[in-house]
């Protein structure tokens, strides 16, 4: 949108590899600082090209250790890696302990890795509201691959699908019988299943159940989910995990599913942004605008129902424009 003259200096700095500018812009994005908006917008055209790999799964399955192992593997191949690890914010204090960094083993002078911890800040679904934008910033900063490690997920935490091009669902032996794998939610989003801690007994059975699940049908993109087994202590299976991820990335390119997925994600993003904005706007008006306060009074007094009130607002405030 803006020409080179309007290109924000921070955006230029990020593209030139300035890690401080990157770190500060991430903070601004997280904080909803309006100053970050032109930067994120300017960098948007430089995104959407690299693998964005989501690592999700219940707490304690070893996502951070796997992330560390994958970072090590890719650095060995000369690839640069950006990583985001999300941990939960307290619903009580708003604070958080972001502890995924302790698994990271890398040379402090290695500029080929950038690791950022994020708190979920009240967002459900496994990532923070701004995680997608931060992932884009990492891509714009030039990293070859970006990983997003979610909050330890429950059965229904699938928000990573709105960010990742490949979603890895990490599990461990003895998480439940094969019926668990049929349940909706988490098991549906896996492009790759990883049975981690595969040095433990039961790994073979878990992998068999997941393979059976994967053979029953494809994902929504018609991809046959892969099942791999890893252990970060032995270590074993890490190259195989990366191979499964890249196989899915190749599939996305060969079948056109990458573009289709981008369209789906971006349509949802546009709708989501508009929904947030309109929702905030309406909430605000219902409090401040005299006419709308009266409307709300009527709904509270059961004179007008909420459906009619919404219709009226939509007609008067949004549809006309």
């Amino acid at each position: 949108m803006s020409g080179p003259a309007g290109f924000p200096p921070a955006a230029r700095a990020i593209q030139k590899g300035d890690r401080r500018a990157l770190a500060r812009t991430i903070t601004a994005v997280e904080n909803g600082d309006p100053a970050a908006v032109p930067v994120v917008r300017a960098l948007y055209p430089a995104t959407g090209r690299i693998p964005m790999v989501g690592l999700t799964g219940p707490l304690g399955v070893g996502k951070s250790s796997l992330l560390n192992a994958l970072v090590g593997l890719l650095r060995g191949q000369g690839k640069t890696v950006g990583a985001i690890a999300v941990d939960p914010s307290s619903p009580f204090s708003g604070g958080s302990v972001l502890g995924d960094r302790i698994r990271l083993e890398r040379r402090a002078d290695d500029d080929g890795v950038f690791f950022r911890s994020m708190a979920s800040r009240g967002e459900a679904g496994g990532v923070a509201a701004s995680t997608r934008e931060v992932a884009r910033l990492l891509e714009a900063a030039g990293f070859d691959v970006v990983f997003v490690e979610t909050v330890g997920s429950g059965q229904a935490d699938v928000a990573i699908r709105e960010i990742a091009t490949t979603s890895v669902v990490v599990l461990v032996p003895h998480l439940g019988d094969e019926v668990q794998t049929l349940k909706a939610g988490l098991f549906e989003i896996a492009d790759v299943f990883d049975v981690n801690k595969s040095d433990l007994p039961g790994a073979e059975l878990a992998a068999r159940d997941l393979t059976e699940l994967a053979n029953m049908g494809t994902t929504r993109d018609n991809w046959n989910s892969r099942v791999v087994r890893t252990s970060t202590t032995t270590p074993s299976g890490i190259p195989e995990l990366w191979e499964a991820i890249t196989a899915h990335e190749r599939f996305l390119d060969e079948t056109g599913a990458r573009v289709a997925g981008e369209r789906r994600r971006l349509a949802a993003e546009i709708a989501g942004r508009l929904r947030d904005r309109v929702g905030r706007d309406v909430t605000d008006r219902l409090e401040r605008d005299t006419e709308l306060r009266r409307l709300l009074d009527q709904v509270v007094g059961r004179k007008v129902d909420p459906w009619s009130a919404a219709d009226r607002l939509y007609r008067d405030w949004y549809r006309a424009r």
Partner: protein
Amino acid sequence: MARRPKPTPIRVLIAKPGLDGHDRGAKVVARALRDAGMEVIYAGLRQTPEDVVRAALEEDVDLIGLSILSGAHMALFPRILALLKEQKADKIPVFAGGIIPDEDARRLKKAGVRAIFGPGTSLEEIVSTARRLARGAA
């Protein structure tokens, strides 16, 4: 019209530089800061000064807390302060806790460590000092 701005959480790095393995104190402080509404990046054990500074810059923290019980503070802390300065990041306040003799504490404060907490310091004092240091850093 504008959304009421939520206060942005203070981001603080808690790290244990050096080679001692006693991280209970660091964990207790991390938890107290969490309960005070801060986002605590817990970097854990055996961090080199370079690791600490790297983490502080990537995580863009407002504050750095160092815990040490090994006795190597006179070697490690000045190195961390020097690296921060080298990176033009010496505005990030550094505080410390652990077993640090008074004489050393005096010298470290002179070198730029903003607060030093010995055994028996109340968590309230640590939290309020951390908050004051972080706010002053902006």
